[in-house]
């Protein structure tokens, strides 16, 4: 774990209320694994403000990328930082996804939940992965170009049908699962996104007896396991999302 003084290399509004933040953070970049996150001190917030946790979207060549949605005062303030500004980045933090997968890796993401899945796909290898991504409308779908460039097979569902099939992302997911089962192929689930989606994926993993890797968001104070603020209930009791997670096995989770 490093608390690295990082420099903003790029910081762009990518539409839909999302921004793409690119940081020069060589220490964090070389140590981070898919599913891990960083805890960022937002420069313009007051000294006592807590840090904000974000999944690592990509890490390569000393550079860490984050995709984030502006939802409150911290992300709004972060959005005002500019190229060349310095940002304290604490990381890598948490337990990420397993980096081996038996059979197909079914990546299921919603919103900024696709961020860690991109880094995962790059690590597992595009050919092993299918990304299932959902959103209300086409504008909610993030980083499709990056997944495409990797060569990942992408299946899209939008509530309004503006892109991909109309409806929930579980529809194309279930279709693929049925296909794989019919073909006798193995698969694992990897998911990050809103709680409803996580639950839907976890239920399928349990029902099908397939491994399910669920990345959960919990409000955090320290991000390193020191404060016990970020509790996720598990079969073994109260776990800390920041250090025992954020990725949990579907079998461990208690909803």
């Amino acid at each position, binding site marked *: 774990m490093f608390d690295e003084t990082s420099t903003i290399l790029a910081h762009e509004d990518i539409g839909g209320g999302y921004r793409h933040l690119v940081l020069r953070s060589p220490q964090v970049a070389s140590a981070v694994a898919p599913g891990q996150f960083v805890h960022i001190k937002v420069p313009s917030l007051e*000294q006592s*403000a807590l840090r904000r946790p974000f999944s690592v979207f990509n890490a390569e060549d000393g550079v860490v990328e984050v995709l984030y949605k502006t939802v409150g005062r911290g992300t709004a303030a972060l959005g005002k930082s500019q190229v060349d500004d310095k940002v304290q980045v604490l990381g890598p933090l948490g337990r990420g996804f397993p980096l081996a997968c038996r059979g197909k890796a079914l990546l299921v993401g919603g919103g900024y939940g696709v961020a860690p899945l991109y880094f995962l796909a790059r690590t597992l290898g595009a050919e092993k992965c299918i990304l299932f991504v959902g959103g209300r409308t086409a504008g909610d779908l993030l980083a499709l170009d990056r997944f495409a460039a990797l060569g990942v097979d992408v299946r899209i569902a939008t509530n309004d049908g503006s892109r991909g099939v109309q409806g929930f992302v579980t529809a194309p997911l279930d279709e693929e699962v049925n296909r794989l089962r019919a073909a006798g192929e193995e698969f694992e689930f990897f998911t990050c996104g809103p709680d409803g989606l996580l639950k839907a994926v976890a239920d399928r993993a349990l029902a099908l007896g397939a491994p399910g890797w669920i990345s959960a968001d919990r*409000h955090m104070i320290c991000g390193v396991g*020191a404060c016990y603020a970020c*509790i996720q209930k598990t079969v073994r009791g109260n776990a800390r999302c920041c250090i025992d997670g954020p990725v949990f096995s579907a079998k461990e989770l208690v909803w």
Partner: protein
Amino acid sequence: MVIDTRVNLGGLEMSTPLATASGTFGYGTEYAGAVDYSCLGAITAKGVRLDPWPGNAMPRHVEVPGGLVNAIGLQGPGIDAFLAHHVDEYERLFPGGPKMIVNIWGGTVEEYAEVASRLEAAGRKSIAAIECNVSCPNVKAGGHTFGHDTAVLGRLVAGVRAATRLPLIVKLAPNVGSIAPFAQTCADNGADAISLINTIPAMAIDIEKRVPVLANKTGGLSGRGIHPAAVKLVYDAHRAVKLPVLAMGGVYEARDAVEFMLAGASAVALGSAIFSDPGVVRKVYDGMLEYCSRHGFSAVSDLTGALAD
């Protein structure tokens, strides 16, 4: 000028005047890599009790202007797992590292005393002092009432004192009319030091949902905004009794720590500031030394109570 950074907190010999505050620094290992441990004279472990304790439901905290309100509720593994797992790991990672103050709590005097005697009996190298939390606002059955009634407090301190020879620090509640009688009670019953302040009882309401933000409804306020209140309590306590004071509450800069020392503290603990910036430990340490050299103090301990009048 070489500055002597050693301080003695009621028998606890610290290599620097800085500690970490209980509950903000886990069991001492979690911040490895981000905090400069060489600046710390002690770390304080998260509250330990006899049996495992689940803590409160989520959400357990909320950010507020000037700090945060928390109601973690003292989740912990109980004394056995603490000794077997957490102390082991601390000693493995930091064999010659800062000494450990163990923060303890319980529902009865007997429970407190039992935890204290087990800690001493364990004979662990790192465990150097006990901090008795009589003031956590988040556990109803817990220490809360101990901290607001001098008779009850006296019995508790005497009970724990009888159970251990380790330096005994009593952590007092900030929400009292006058700290003097509570400090005096600690002195009278054999405590070696007091620590001040615990969080201030507080609350935040989600006005859109019209519910308290915290599952526990209320919690404790820590952070930058409580510092001036903490300075007052440390100042009053230092003038009321001879016991050394471990001061905490909203230290974010070296000047805050120096202020505590001048108000009468023998050592200073960093808490919420570490959440925002683990580098604060080094900055506060360096700044204190810089202050000492600029003002001609050859020992940090000379700052204690060194007001000009």
